[in-house]
């Protein structure tokens, strides 16, 4: 398992990175944590002629709060997400999901931006981003633009990133006191992708569900926003019966591929079960539970 030959660049500024990407076009790949890309290169599934390593760009790291938004640099690692007090308070779903990504060593290298931009339906953060209502700052030759997570995930290895663009920052609205969250992930073992996963964030107004987002992991060509399940619950007092109905709706929106984790039937049912679990947990938390 040996990667092919490539030229390596490690720019220290975003401007340089964007310029390099513009120069080399689709012969180049952007390297973040490398735990998806390097194995693919070793298997020669990916053979970029140029590798643009973002690890030396300091402006891509860090978590802060500004203008009512939590801002996460794209090169922030999974373990930095887990360790962040700010996220624990303002966006707790993100570190909770990060704990279920890969393993301790991989979480030291793997980044939230890489996880999102890679477009692998098995990655966890896309569904989480849908659930927290994140938006992404994309930087390219024409400048920066901000897009919503909802609509960003288009297919397997296919996102809203245009040619020459690099994901720079993730913007997340902070939670309120009546927000609850949950991430349920079924996996075969540590380090595996989800057989199915569900990310939920909801806000209550009294007993009524004011807003809700549900993202599903690895049960389609990309992360799925389970809008039909959300519609069942939004504006309602969430009951166990409604949770079951919502899960059925979520299952109907999935389109999983059979692999060694399960066939279509199993994965569909597991999407439903993960949905139920995440919903129950989010509801309990929104009501002030653990």
């Amino acid at each position, binding site marked *: 398992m040996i990667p092919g030959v490539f030229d390596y660049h490690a720019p220290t500024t975003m401007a340089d990175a964007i310029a390099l990407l513009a120069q080399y076009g689709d012969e180049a790949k952007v390297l973040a944590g490398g735990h998806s890309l390097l*194995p693919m290169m070793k298997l020669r599934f990916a053979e970029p002629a140029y590798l643009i*390593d973002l690890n030396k760009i300091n402006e891509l790291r860090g978590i802060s709060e500004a203008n009512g938004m939590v801002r996460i640099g794209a090169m922030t690692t999974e373990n930095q997400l887990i360790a962040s007090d700010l996220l624990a308070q303002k966006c707790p779903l993100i570190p909770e999901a990060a704990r279920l990504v890969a393993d*301790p060593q991989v979480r030291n*290298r793997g980044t939230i931006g890489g996880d999102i931009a890679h477009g692998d339906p098995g990655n966890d953060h896309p569904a989480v981003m849908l659930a927290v209502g994140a938006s992404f700052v994309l930087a390219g030759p024409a400048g920066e633009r901000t897009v919503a997570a909802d609509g960003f995930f288009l297919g397997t290895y296919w996102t809203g990133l245009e040619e020459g663009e690099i994901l720079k920052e993730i913007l997340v609205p902070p939670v309120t006191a009546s927000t609850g969250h949950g991430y349920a992930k079924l996996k075969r073992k*540590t380090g595996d992708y989800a057989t199915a996963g569900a990310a939920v964030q909801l806000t209550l107004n009294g007993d009524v569900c004011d807003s809700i987002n549900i993202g599903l992991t690895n049960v389609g060509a990309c992360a799925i926003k389970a809008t039909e399940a959300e519609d069942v619950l939004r504006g309602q007092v969430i009951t166990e019966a409604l949770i079951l109905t919502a899960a059925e709706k979520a299952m109907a929106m999935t389109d999983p591929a059979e692999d060694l984790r399960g066939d279509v039937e199993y994965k569909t049912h597991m999407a439903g079960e993960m949905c139920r679990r995440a919903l129950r947990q989010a509801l309990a938390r929104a009501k002030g539970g653990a």
Partner: protein
Amino acid sequence: MAKQHITFTLNGQAVEALVHPRELLIHVLREQLMQTGAHIGCETSHCGACTIDIDNESVKACTMLAVQADGADILSVEGLAANGELHAVQQAFVDEHGLQCGFCTPGMLLRAYRFLKENPTPTEEDIRWGMSGNLCRCTGYQNIIKAVQTASRTLQAE
């Protein structure tokens, strides 16, 4: 592309190497610098046999380019004992029979070393979670967990 000159600190010593960009850090450590303690087990970053400590974090050296280590401070198993004294995790692995064939051991030790700095007084569950990036085929883990607990106690007593 021409080879690149990199320098880093390895077990307290300044080292340099000429590497192709695609060369994996594990290969440079093992084959150029002849530090063969870290091993190659799976090459897809699942087994952790190649675990080393880079800038105070546990990293799987099979999934990092050597050029990315330029300027880094690296600790490998060869540097764990200091002044002729075994580190507490090394002694604990011997005392609790936490190794058999020895192939996973350097990676296990380096991860245990760093894990106990991250969490000096872990519960058994903490250990299972915090050491879950390292596979062992021989021990069934039970004695490795005991070894980490023992090392934790030793380090606390120091």
